[in-house]
């Protein structure tokens, strides 16, 4: 039987909110988060990502990540960090015309309390400088807790608009 992509939760932001939380992870399946047309209220912001435990974002210093940052206008670069308070795995975007973040994340082992939780990211963003930029990489949350979802916000200010959807990859 072919696998299916089953919607678990969604949030469409049309008036500013501080963050979006998508919950409903309750199995060891792989989950996917799709984000489109995500725009901040403040200029020069990047989407920060946290796991949720019983619906509450975890902001402890347990987030490691690494990515290749591809750029349409100049040489690519690498990004990485350890022991952060969130995954900072998206590119900066802004409030200028047509600036937004679009991307996909895959979530692994979130439900499993015996293993760390992992994420991969691929995104295509028009930055606050009006350039094309996108990260390809991943991260780990170095805690053996059971995570039921994901929380997305900007570092400062609100999410002005965007659609965020959590899917499960089911048999």
């Amino acid at each position: 039987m072919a696998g299916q992509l089953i919607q678990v939760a969604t949030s469409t932001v049309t008036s500013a909110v501080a963050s979006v939380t998508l919950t409903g992870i309750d199995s060891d399946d792989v989950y996917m988060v799709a984000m489109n047309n995500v725009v901040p209220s403040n200029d020069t912001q990047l989407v920060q990502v946290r796991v949720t435990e019983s619906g509450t974002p975890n902001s402890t210093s347990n987030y490691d990540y690494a990515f290749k940052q591809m750029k349409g206008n100049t040489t690519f670069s690498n990004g990485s960090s350890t022991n952060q308070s969130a995954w900072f795995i998206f590119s900066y975007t802004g409030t200028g015309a047509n600036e937004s973040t679009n991307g996909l994340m895959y979530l692994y082992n979130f439900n499993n309390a015996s293993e760390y939780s992992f994420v991969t990211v691929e995104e295509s963003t028009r930055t606050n400088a009006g350039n094309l930029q996108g990260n390809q990489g991943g991260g780990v949350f170095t805690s053996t807790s059971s995570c039921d979802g994901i929380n997305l916000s900007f570092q400062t200010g609100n999410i002005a608009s965007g659609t965020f959807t959590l899917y499960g990859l089911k048999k």
Partner: protein
Amino acid sequence: MSNLRLINETNASSVASVSVTDVFTSDFDIYKVELLRPDLNTGTGTWLDIRLVNTSGSVISSSSYDYASLVMNSNAGFGEDRSTSATFMRGLRYSSNSSADGGGMVIYVFNPTNTSSYTFLLQQSSSFSTAESKMVSTKMIGVLKSTTGIGGINFYHTNNFDDVNIKIYGLRVDS
């Protein structure tokens, strides 16, 4: 029912350019495009590239695309392929005329019908050239810097495809 909905399947042969039109609609904001079995007569080491098609069915070939592609070679170092104000977005590296080689490519298209935003792409591909004993994988991001409504996608090459199969899915969001 899966939220990944197959909305179009197109097969083409003996053409240098294939467009799938009137496939992006307001029903979906994100689409998954699969390109399979891109067999080519000639053109080892050249590229099959991507353009978008407006809602009138015309291929957009103006200098309105930016792209950045990480090119990962099995037998050589990695490369960076990027451009601003290009007339296309980079696709799959073509192989040779062996019946066994070829490759595959998956593209995600964001916001094609939204006339208040640009259209963004994610792409990844893998292909093999028997003549060169070379596998090339790509990861590409792209944007069409226009708020024109987009109805479809175009793949093209300087030589004819022997055969190609394209499947397009919409990622359904149930509110």
